[in-house]
């Protein structure tokens, strides 16, 4: 583990402690014992929320780094891939039909949406292992599921359902419970393990597809591993927190100057960086002096949009 990774891990730990303490009510460390009545805030609200912020951030950061390495494109994002909007459509369906009153149904639908999109992507991309086909298929699935989500929104049975869908789509970690933790975290961990196993193949891909194949990489197996890994991490993240964009795009860029440009070297730092970014951001939206809490998804987009623009401008300068 490099020094940068160790520092990041330390930062994540500090952010986690801060996140448990921070909010409209500050809970000092000495009130975390069961004797104190405020400990219920810690155990039932802050702790699951912090764990979700850590897990979702790590999932998005790592899947972003894996996607950029796989597509060999620094502008790739796990959302490109259709899984995120597929999961969102699944969740919106459960809201549309009013099933969301059951705590397990919304994440269940979201995971089903992610799995269905993943299966469609794997079927379309087929055995070819082709990057262009894969990217286009991902984009088309994103567009189809996006339009279905818009359809559900426009046909929502009650204004209440419509507003519920709208709010959910913005992405947040507000009022999450241990239910979401139990559903999402194991899947995220599994997905990250799958992505970690692609590290060596992603490195070989740095030299192009033909060289990678000559070095023993099976492009079809690699593609399948990337699809399954991203579907598990991103699908479970959306199931828990809704759509939170830009983390997967930004974080790999932020860690690359310290971790190096080799794709495998960015996977773990990007996971830590994502966990750090999302945990800090989630603590800040809780602390922000707004009447109702600022949605985390919106906060990340407001941060991510300008960053993306900065990235494009600096790339343009380098290419010019």
């Amino acid at each position, binding site marked *: 583990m490099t020094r940068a990774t160790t520092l990041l891990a330390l930062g994540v730990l500090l952010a986690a402690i801060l996140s448990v303490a921070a909010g409209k009510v500050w809970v000092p460390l000495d009130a975390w014992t069961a004797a104190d009545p405020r400990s219920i805030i810690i155990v039932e609200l802050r702790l699951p929320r912090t764990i979700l912020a850590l897990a979702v951030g790590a999932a998005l950061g790592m899947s972003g780094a894996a996607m950029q390495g796989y597509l060999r494109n620094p502008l790739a994002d796990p959302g490109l891939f259709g899984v995120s909007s597929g999961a969102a459509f699944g969740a919106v369906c459960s809201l549309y039909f009013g099933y969301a009153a059951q705590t397990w149904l919304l994440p269940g639908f979201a995971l089903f949406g992610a799995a269905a999109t993943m299966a469609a992507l794997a079927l379309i991309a087929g055995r070819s292992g082709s990057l262009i086909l894969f990217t286009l298929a991902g984009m088309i699935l994103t567009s189809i599921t996006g339009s279905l989500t818009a359809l559900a929104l426009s046909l929502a049975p009650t204004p209440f359902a419509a507003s519920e869908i709208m709010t959910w789509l913005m992405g947040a970690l507000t009022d999450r419970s241990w239910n979401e933790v139990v559903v999402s975290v194991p899947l995220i961990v599994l997905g990250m393990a799958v992505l970690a196993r692609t590290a060596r193949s992603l490195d070989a891909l740095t030299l192009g597809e033909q*060289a990678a194949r000559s070095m023993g990489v*099976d492009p079809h197996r690699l593609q399948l591993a990337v699809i399954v890994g991203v579907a598990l991490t991103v699908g479970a993240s959306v199931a828990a927190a809704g759509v939170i964009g830009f983390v997967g795009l930004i974080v790999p860029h932020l860690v690359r100057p310290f971790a190096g*440009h080799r794709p495998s070297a960015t996977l773990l730092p990007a996971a830590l960086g994502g966990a750090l970014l999302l945990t800090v951001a989630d603590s800040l939206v809780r602390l922000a002096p707004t009447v109702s809490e600022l949605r985390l998804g919106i906060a990340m987009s407001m941060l991510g949009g300008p960053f993306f623009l900065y990235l494009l401008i600096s790339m343009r300068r380098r290419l010019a």
Partner: protein
Amino acid sequence: MSVLAAEGISLVLGGKRVLESVDVVFSGGRVTALLGSNGAGKSSLLACLAGLHAPEAGRATLGGAEVRAMPAPARARRIGFLPQAADVHWNIDVATLVALGRLPWRGRWGETAADCAAAEAALAATGMTAFARRGVEHLSGGERARALLARVLAGEPEWLLADEPLASLDPAHQLEVGAQLRAVAAGGSGVVLVVHDLNLAARLADDVVLLRDGRVVAAGAAEDVLTAALVGATYGLTVETGVTATGQRYIVPVGRPG
């Protein structure tokens, strides 16, 4: 040293027949040049030898075993392949690039001392040690070609298959990288190159295979194959050959026959 061989390889790519019953035996410790016009099937034959294409008929063998039937990591350790495209998709430094050549050898727990030693030897052999910390985006074309060659050499392959490794280099660098390839063969490995420059082939190659329309026109020792008649027939050109004052053979295409 195992023998690398194409045994009756026929290959169809995108509906087009690119190789037709190609039989060639390559010897270790020698540099073999594959020559022929564009589309003659040189790169396809090289990729077949590396196990990257599934031929319609025939097979590539290494020491009698079919290359495509070998487990991928074992194949990658024995056959080093340098593709024509000089792609390096991230701005990694040269040392990291060269270390990628050790991936087929890498155990579960990362780099071993043997991996580091092989990478350093490859850097030294290509004269790239001084560039080890430089990002690939900041290399000249010649330096990049040498760094990519070092990547393959780091894998210590028995066979080095290189697709036009000299194409983008100026004459000085062509001679320099060419000398490195000859040194690899002198070390006992087999080297197979796709080359376009006839004079470079005459200078570097021990053996030459001439291809035309996916078929072998001639194969054998360079001095037997690089004749005006055979080279002329391969390219459909009138060719003059001769020897310079220093004993270097040269081949000059002078035009279409008739």
